């Protein structure tokens, strides 16, 4: 069973069909990737998870209990006021659609990658539900 799974995951084609298709409209992705509404609490846990390419590698976030926030991308405090939910979703799913040169990884894209470690090949960094949870969390980061 694990072997079969590994074989299936090794084939990008079959995996690609498992990714939810996303449509970019007016600089955002208006349609949620899942039918389950995102949970901001889960999102806040996911963005800290070092096993999931934590945003904290690059961004400062209003998560004071975590040490050593990165300084590579802009701080995300207030980001929920700067962008709409569809805009946040696109910035997470595929920031390269906005700026092909950006350092920020696409969290829900599998094409166009080179030499991906076998155990991650054919899978996006986040699942569709994790995208929704993190988007929901980012939307709560309002400027005051």
């Amino acid at each position: 069973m694990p072997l079969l799974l590994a074989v299936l995951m090794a084939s990008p084609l079959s995996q690609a069909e498992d990714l939810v298709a996303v449509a970019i409209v007016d600089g955002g992705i208006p349609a949620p990737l899942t039918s389950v509404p995102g949970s901001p609490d889960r999102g806040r846990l996911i963005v800290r998870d070092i096993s999931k390419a934590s945003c904290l590698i690059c961004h400062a976030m209003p998560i004071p209990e975590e040490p050593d926030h990165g300084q590579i991308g802009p701080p995300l405090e207030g980001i929920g006021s700067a962008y709409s939910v569809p805009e946040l979703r696109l910035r997470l799913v595929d920031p390269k659609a906005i700026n092909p040169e950006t350092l920020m990884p696409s969290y829900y894209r599998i094409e166009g990658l080179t030499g991906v470690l076998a155990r991650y090949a054919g899978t996006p960094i986040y699942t569709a539900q994790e995208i929704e949870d993190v988007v929901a969390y980012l939307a709560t980061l309002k400027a005051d």
Partner: protein
Amino acid sequence: MRFLVLLVGVVSAGLAASAFSRAQEADPTPTPRSGYEFMAPQTQALQDDDFVNPAFFSVEAGERLWSTPMGSEGLSCASCHEAAETSMAGVAARYPQYDPDVGGLVNLEGRINQMLTKEMGAEALAYESEALLGLTTYVALQSRGMPMAVDIEGPARPYFEAGRDYFFTRRGQLDLSCSQCHDGLAGQKLRGDTISQGQINGFPIYRLLWNSTASRHRMFAWCNTSLRAEPEAAGSETYLALELYLAWRGGGLPMESPAVRR
């Protein structure tokens, strides 16, 4: 062999497409600065004092091996090279280099293994074995303070180009190139780490994170894996080419081996 085909492919494609445009691009390669400059003062202090630098355990192991007969010929390194302080001065700073007998690049580890297998009737030592790290560190120490200067012309040229291509190619699930971090972000914080230029003048290094002495190729593999990219094998032709590019990129930096890094 397969690599060579690949290499030629990469090089000719590179010439046709990218070398031309790259020449017009601004070269992002910064003025070389050693990783030492990016370390915390406590880490620098460990490197500054040979008596507390933990890599000196490797140096001592290498020094002992230098005069220990190994292999069926009953020879030690010292039988042919006598005092390493004189015979090995400046040698590490010139590696990797093209070796016509091998028909490819040889780095310091590879040259030492050649000595064992060809001159001494001994088995090659495994990459990252204490013995090979010891000999490599001991030989590299004899170049301390001397500027890195590798030859990238003639037959070394295609390897240099392949190494440069590798450095500028985004890879892994995080889709980042070596250059994006080590040219673009040097000096900035990636969480707790200050990113350096990824120079190799300090290797073999003692890496505190690993509690051990480590080769250049082990570090390449670590960065690859951090990007969730498939690492290459230590000693592989791809990593030798990358090593040659990096040695050129840090040209003029004084050799620091054995450096201490986070």
